[in-house]
Structures are given as structure tokens and as C-alpha cells.
């Protein structure tokens, strides 16, 4: 792993400025999980339109009077994230296909847990109306109750259950 990362305070300050710029220009915050949601809604709407029309989760975002879900703000923002991260990784020589995993975990195991973790995150973000970026960070920037509650719930749950998942990340010795 390439360890040459930016000073975290500087990175945090820049991230804060990006978020501030977003709020200043567009009046809304950053996000990520919303893009996945839009893609899923668009896919279900295209494959099984009748099924989608019957379920309020999909129908809220589909049908006449709605912009196509793939034309959502977050979909474009996430495309930008892909590009930006790619350029950053290119500059720092970090572009390579790898599966990063804890010392005790097989590649297959890591991917299985990544799938499971992704699914939990995806579902949880729907319930909480946003993920770490959309609900927690952006919410904290505008001092919303939702932002702080979601942030504390995510990190609280992480600290609470970390002991049970330690074999996924830690080696025999403490530390990495």
C-alpha cells in the first residue's frame, strides 16, 4: 500500500471546503448512496415497470412528472467522484487491481463480506435517508439533528460491534 497520503487535517479542511462550495452553489450537500438508489430504481423501472409502479419506494421516483432517475444530481456527482479519485490515484501511482484484506482473511472471504457489508450499508442508508456523506457529513454541515444522530449511530454501532469482526481486519498481533 502506498502510504503517501495527504495530511488528514489538510484533507479534512479541503473536504470541508468542497462541501461548503456545494452548499453555497447548489443549496444541497454531498452524497453517495442516493446514486446507487437511483440506479436500482431505474433498473427495476426498466425491467419490471408494473412491479415498480406497485411499490411506493420505486413509484415515488418514477413515472410522468419525474425526472429520469439516471439524470439525478447524485448520479452525476458520483460519476465525478469516480473521475476525481481516478485522477488522484493516477497521480499518486495507486492504480492497480487488488483485493485489500486483513491478514487472516482469504480473497473469497473478503469479497463475500464486502458484498454483505455493502448490502447492509445500502439498506441502512435507505432507512436513514442517506449514508456517511449524504446524511451524516452533509447533515452536520447544516447542523441538522439527522446529521448528528446518523453520525453517532454509524460510529457508535461500529465501535460497539468492532470486537466481533476483529478477525476480518486484525492480524495475530495488535495493530496491522
Amino acid at each position: 500500500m502506498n502510504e503517501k497520503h495527504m495530511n488528514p487535517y489538510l484533507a479534512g479542511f479541503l473536504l470541508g471546503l468542497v462541501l461548503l462550495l456545494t452548499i453555497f452553489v447548489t443549496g444541497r450537500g454531498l452524497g453517495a448512496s442516493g446514486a446507487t438508489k437511483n440506479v436500482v430504481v431505474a433498473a427495476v423501472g426498466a425491467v419490471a415497470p408494473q412491479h415498480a409502479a406497485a411499490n411506493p419506494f420505486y413509484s415515488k421516483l418514477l413515472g410522468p412528472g419525474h425526472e429520469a432517475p439516471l439524470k439525478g444530481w447524485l448520479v452525476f456527482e458520483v460519476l465525478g467522484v469516480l473521475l476525481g479519485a481516478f485522477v488522484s490515484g493516477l497521480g499518486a501511482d495507486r492504480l492497480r487491481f487488488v483485493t485489500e484484506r486483513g491478514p487472516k482473511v482469504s480473497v473469497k472471504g473478503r469479497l463475500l463480506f464486502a458484498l454483505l457489508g455493502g448490502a447492509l450499508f445500502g439498506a441502512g442508508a435507505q432507512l436513514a435517508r442517506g449514508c456517511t456523506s449524504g446524511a451524516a457529513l452533509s447533515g452536520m454541515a447544516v447542523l441538522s439533528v439527522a446529521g448528528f444522530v446518523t453520525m453517532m449511530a454509524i460510529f457508535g454501532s461500529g465501535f460497539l460491534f468492532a470486537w466481533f469482526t476483529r478477525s476480518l481486519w486484525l492480524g495475530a498481533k495488535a495493530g496491522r
Partner: protein
Amino acid sequence: MGPFVPDLISDQLNLVVALAIGFLFGFVLEQAGFSSSRRLVGVFYGYDLTVLRVFFTAAVTAAAGVLLLAAGGLLDLTAIFVNPTWLAPAIAGGVLMGLGFLLGGFCPGTSVCAAAIGKVDAMVFLAGGALGVFGYAELFPRFAAFADSTSLGPAKVYESLGVSPGLFVLLLAAAAILAFTVGGIVERKVAPDAAPSRLFAKKKHVAAAAVLLSFAALAAVVPNRNARLVAKVNAPGYVPHHVVKPMSPDELAFRIIDGDQRLRVVDLRPEAARKARPLPGTIAVPAGEVLGKEWRSTFSPRLVKKVFVAEKEAEAKTAAYLLVETGFENVAYLEGGYGAFERTVLSAKSPEGEGRFAPVVERFREQARTALAERVRLERAAGTAAPKKVKKVQGGC
């Protein structure tokens, strides 16, 4: 004054803005090292607290920045999206997300970053995310009731705690610095050789904390634009640079009944009061939002007289002065507040202090009562009593 969506930046252009903002977001996240799952989950095991440092520094910077922009009159806080709170779903969803973080090693934003530089685990995490959304959607009808429970609306955290937004941000900055300090100690204990906080000098930690704290302190001491202007117009000796006259209840009643096209009555009273004691032909504007961007077009016609109606005369007068102070003209306020309107126009008692005109005034008020009541009835029937809805910024995931 920001935000520039939807009035200055169209929906189409906003997508280009989204792409550009996403680029910066992704670039910074990747630079911070958020494309590594082992680094991200390090926060939960204490060997790498980069997430804590980046996340809280960003939150304090953005929150303080929002307050500072608003204080400078550059950002309209009433026009930005504040994500509404559904308390129980937010906690339950957060707990699920915490578990997802531990098992998957990413959150959605960071997984996009990591996938962009070739991390296979991140690509699988993203696919998992889509499965999670799909599963949630399919089961959604079963717990839709829970998902919409314990709604608090767009609640602000400082209001719940009863402090000013500036003080809250300052406390947040202090809490963040405390967390960085304690976190640094933990990090060096858990990973004596590899702790990222060892990678740079103590001086830099201290400098970062100082910058963060002073930024938050600045946000706490600079008064908010609205509060500053309210203080200015209420200061003794304040003279507005345009004439602001009181309007008598009788004149207001006459002009409303007359259907005066050059009159715009702005009702500042809270919704409950407006419903219980309605005044027809008004525009409802929340008392604290008079300076909001949303209402500019309502107040800008110079040939139209804007009359503020509030429970207390002083409140309406302040609103009128605020308008004048921010460049609007032809503003007035209801003399004596809504109470005076009720005591005179709406009262069946004989008019006082009208001398020999008393019988005329009494006859007028009698007709006015009937006409006003009729207008209220018509508005209710037509549903036009509903406040004017302006297109607002939408956000959220």
C-alpha cells in the same frame, strides 16, 4: 446571494456542477487515503484514526463556513436543504450502516473512490450496496410505517440543545480536538510503529487544532446578518432612509376590500393565529424569513405597497425597516398590530376618537366586517388561503 440553484443555475447546468463537485470530492477523498478499507476501519480498532481526523475537520470547516457565509449575507440559510429527521429510522439505519462498515470496510462514497483506483473489494461492496437497496425496496411496503415514524422535520441540532448555532460549532470544534488528542494517544498505543499520527510532527497537530478552533470561534462571534440588521433597525436613533409609515386598520381594511392591486399585505403571524383569526388577501411569510431569497420577488415591485401585519406593531415595523435596509422601497406596517385591527375594524363597538365622523366610521366598519368575512369564506372555499409555494432546493440521498 447563494445558493444559485434553482434561480441562477438551471437543472441541466446543475448536473454539470454535480460532475465538477463530484470530481473534487473524489479527488480529496482519495488523497486522504479513503480508498483503503484497512485504513478506513482502522478507526474502529484504533490503529489508524485518519477517518476521525478527516471527517471531523471537514464537518467543523463546513459548518463554520456555512455560518460565516450567512453572516456575510452571501448565503441564504432559509433556502438551503436541511435533511429532515426521522429519529428511530435514522438510528436503526445508522446501526445497520455501522455493521456494514465493519463487514464491508467502506461506506458508499469511499467505496466509489476505491473502486475507481481498482480495488476489487470496493467494486463488490458497490454491487452489495445495490443489492441492499433492492432488498430494502422489495421489503419496503412492510415497514414503510416504521421508516416514516418519529418525524421531527428539518430539526436543527442547536435548537434541540438550546444554544446558538455559533456556540454549537465552537463546542463541536472543541470536541473534535479532544477526540483527535485522545485518538492520537490510542493510535500510538495500539500501533506504536505504524500510527499515522507519527508521520508528521507534533507542531502540525497543534497548528491544525489552532486553525480549526479559531475558524469555529470566528463563526461563533460574527453575528448573523439577520440578527445584525435587526439590532441595527431597533437601535435608538435609527432613521430609515426611505419613508416607512404606519397604516391605520381602517385604511388596510378598505384597501383589502377594494382589491387594491398596488397593495401587498404580508402576514407575519404564526400559522395557528392566521388560521384562527384570518385576514384575507395576504401572503404568509414566517417572521424570521423576511430577508429570505424566496420572498424577494414578492417585495421587489416598487409601485406596490408592502404592508406588514404582525401580532405586535413593533414586529411589523422591524420587518418593514429590514426591507428598507436591504434596498426595498414603499413599505408600511399595520398600526397597533393585529390586535388594533380587531379592536377597531372587527369590533362592533362604537368607534372612539372619531368625533363627528363616528357614525360614518361605524357604518364603514360594519360593511368591512361583512366583506372581509366573505373574502375569507371565498378564499377557504377556493383554497387560495394556502401560502404561496416557491420551488425550493431538494437534496438528500
